[in-house]
């Protein structure tokens, strides 16, 4: 577990160095994610220890959003002033986004999926 956690942190660190070093707008962890995926593809497989640690960590992914979410308390007064446009925009936009993404992707899956495959 310690080894796998170190691997994840090293990839994140390399991602941060690339992100800040090259002045990219993409955050370090997202670059680290892409690099780890690349490494797994080159290695052709996931080490058992890394799989266990990653699964354990991702099982509690929701928990990690709680501390930032509590930050809502700092903005309560601003939210009170503009609650109507904010609430309506967020609700409708979320429903529309899920629906449009799903419909477009579903339709294209049936039309194009597998066609570019060798």
């Amino acid at each position, binding site marked *: 577990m310690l080894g796998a956690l170190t691997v994840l942190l090293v990839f*994140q660190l390399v991602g941060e160095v690339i992100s800040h070093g090259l002045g990219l707008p993409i*955050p370090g962890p997202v670059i680290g*994610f892409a690099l*780890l995926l690349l490494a797994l593809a080159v290695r052709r497989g996931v080490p058992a220890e890394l799989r266990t640690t990653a699964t354990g*960590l991702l099982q509690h992914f929701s928990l990690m959003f709680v*501390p930032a979410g509590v930050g809502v308390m700092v903005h309560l007064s601003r939210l009170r002033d503009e609650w109507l446009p904010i609430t309506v925009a*967020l609700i409708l936009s979320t429903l529309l986004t899920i629906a449009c993404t799903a419909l477009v992707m579903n339709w294209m899956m049936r039309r*194009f*999926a597998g066609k570019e495959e060798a």
Partner: protein
Amino acid sequence: MTPRITDIWVYLSTTPLLGLTVTLLVYQGAFWIYKRADFNPLLNPVPWSVATLVVILTVTNTPYQTYFDGAQFVHFLLGPATVALAVPLYPQLGKLSRAVVPVIGGLLAGGVVAAGSAVGIAWLLGASDTTLLSIAPKSVTAPIAMGISEKIGGLPSLTAVLVMVTGVLGVISAKYVLNFLRITDHAVRGFSIGVAAHGMGIARAFQVSEEAGAFAGVAMALMALGSSILFPLLLWVFTR
């Protein structure tokens, strides 16, 4: 309260232990209820934990910064967990490579609708310019959304809150919307949740299946990539 308990409280409220422990206790309590209720989306543990913690902090008169000094240890794990998303995605690479065109199509449709509809609706209902600029990147994962918000003239901390609320709305509503549209493919279901509700959508999708979670992860990463290129470009076009 006896002076003694007050002393203990004064001591504890200055250490990170309290914020961290309370976060874990509240979350596990909320998760227990969620599990008992057969994972009813309305009882998603994130919004309920956040609400409970806000009440606790308000009642005990604890500033957010003091709380965050402890809770940051949980917050920190977001980084390695994001990297770890590569692990469940790896076995799905085959399916992903066959679905490149639908993935890009879904991403473009979802990304444009996410930003466009939020800004459009808020503008129609008379939101301030600052709010409009802060709400535009609300479907993008928080660290990137905050960066975009800052670049285009919004309030990064307000954006962080709007991103969280969007995530909550996404995980609550996704099941109903997708069932209504009769979408059965787990790749499509996961990807749609990821486009609309970033990392929180991923957490939700993993509760459904590995495939849904992996595609939600791809969606979040592509939204992050696409929007961090597209938003500054749009701003450049409009301010010329």
